[in-house]
């Protein structure tokens, strides 16, 4: 036995990790086909780099590390083409009037919940996911990196090659849109 050393067993990768990696990817890219491809590419890249595995981390963590890099590559490829699209898509100005105060029909309403606790409701989580899917892909990327991977804003800017002020515009826009969507679907019935 090689004490403390982790070993790789590629024959069991699909059986052991495919679903977990697929979940991890699909929540981050919001596109099942793309998520599946990322998992597949991860396994293939792992095989190609099998000699670089030193056994210092577990097989599982090693595969996740490769997948995370694949996801960032995926984001980066998409980001450049999406930045031009977003200019023409939904805009924060639809929420505010000429004086930049709330539009009458967009005024936030009281949700009557405890805002400081997590809501243990599958229905809410489903609505949240639906509303996130409606965001443009770029908004979704920024969101996934920020909230799921808990990255700092400057790191996200660097990875997606966007400026800080653009980052804030994206975040502002997506939060306005998401809040509005959730309110319409969940709280006002």
């Amino acid at each position, binding site marked *: 036995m090689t004490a403390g050393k982790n070993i790789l067993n590629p024959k069991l990768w699909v059986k052991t990790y495919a*679903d977990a990696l697929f979940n991890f990817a699909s929540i981050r890219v919001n596109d099942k086909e793309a998520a599946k491809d990322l998992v597949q590419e991860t396994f293939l890249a792992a095989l190609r780099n099998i000699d670089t595995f030193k056994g210092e981390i577990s097989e599982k963590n090693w595969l996740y590390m490769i997948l995370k890099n694949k996801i960032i590559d995926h984001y980066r490829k998409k980001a450049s083409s999406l930045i031009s699209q977003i200019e023409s898509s939904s805009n924060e100005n639809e929420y505010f009037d000429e004086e*930049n105060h709330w539009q009458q029909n967009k005024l*936030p309403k009281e949700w009557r919940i405890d805002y400081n606790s997590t809501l243990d409701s599958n229905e809410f989580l489903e609505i949240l996911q639906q509303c996130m899917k409606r965001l443009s892909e770029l908004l979704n990327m920024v969101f996934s990196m920020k909230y799921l991977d808990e990255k700092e804003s400057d790191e996200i800017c660097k990875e997606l090659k966007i400026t800080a002020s653009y980052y804030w515009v994206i975040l502002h826009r997506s939060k306005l849109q998401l809040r509005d969507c959730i309110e319409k679907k969940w709280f006002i019935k």
Partner: protein
Amino acid sequence: MKSSKLFITCKEATMFSIMKEERSLPFSERIKLFIHLMICEFCRLFERQHKFISLQIKNLHTHEELTDLEKDNMQHLIESAANKN
């Protein structure tokens, strides 16, 4: 978003509120946001709700699985790639 005036608009306040969540809001802007939130109940609601949404997103997880066929295809691909090495 820089503004020299003390009273900010709702558009600015919502932006500041998002920046504050990431601790990226300078002190002078934090004061302006604080004043705005004292007088604007809608931006107050927005702040509570967008923070709530952040909290929920962090708890998001999916339970989706690949089909057996998809897994079989993947398995074949890996085996044939492994044999080439």
